[in-house]
């Protein structure tokens, strides 16, 4: 699975993209966030304002309850500020 990070989330995680192998226990986006946080403290800081963070699965807006699989492209980013 490819995970992308943008804006200040990217800066906290320290990379814009990474590839991970999804553990079987991870079913939803929520599970994925919990898994990442358990792996490394940088995610704890990145996901501190968890309610604020926007999620995309395969470049479409999704929610924390969205089910994911190893072929998906996941992205985490703050509310958008373009225009």
């Amino acid at each position, binding site marked *: 699975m490819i995970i*992308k990070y*943008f*804006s*200040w989330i990217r800066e906290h995680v320290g990379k814009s993209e990474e590839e991970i192998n999804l553990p079987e226990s991870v079913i939803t986006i929520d599970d994925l966030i919990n898994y990442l946080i358990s792996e490394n403290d940088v995610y704890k800081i990145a996901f501190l304002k968890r309610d604020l963070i*926007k999620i*995309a699965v395969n*470049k*479409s*807006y999704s929610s924390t309850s969205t089910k994911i699989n190893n072929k998906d492209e996941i*992205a985490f*980013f*703050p*509310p*958008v*500020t*373009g*225009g």
Partner: protein
Amino acid sequence: MKKIESVLIKIKIQKNDFDVSKETKQLNINQPGAIVNFIGIVRGLDDKTNEKIYSMTLEHYPGMTETEIETIIYDASKRWKISAVTVIHRIGKLFSSDQIVFVGVASKHRQNAFNACNYIMDWLKTKAPFWKIEESSKEKKWVKFNASDNDAIKKWTEIK
């Protein structure tokens, strides 16, 4: 230009500046009658702190940005009869007074062009995955989402 249903669509995410005359001329096909352009300009002062902003840098999510904008244009075309839409959004480093975004809508009737342009801009502000970092003399900081942009889209659920 790409065609979705009967609407000609052009979406560009680019570092370069755009030429409003050239874009307007390109929208002037099939007897539109009315063209409405929105041009966003980089402000040199922070809206809240009034602090001087030296520059800003924009990043986006390639692929998702274009899809989101296309969806917004498609939704607009379901609400109002429009003939052509161009959206250009710049990325990279921009300075005070630079043009940052262009939304142009052509339609036979002006109210449709006004509404669709306004609608596309409002939704772009809340949905298109762009992020700005502002650089002042003191610091670099990520721009916070503006709550008023969430209020702006409410009008489209009230007026039809």
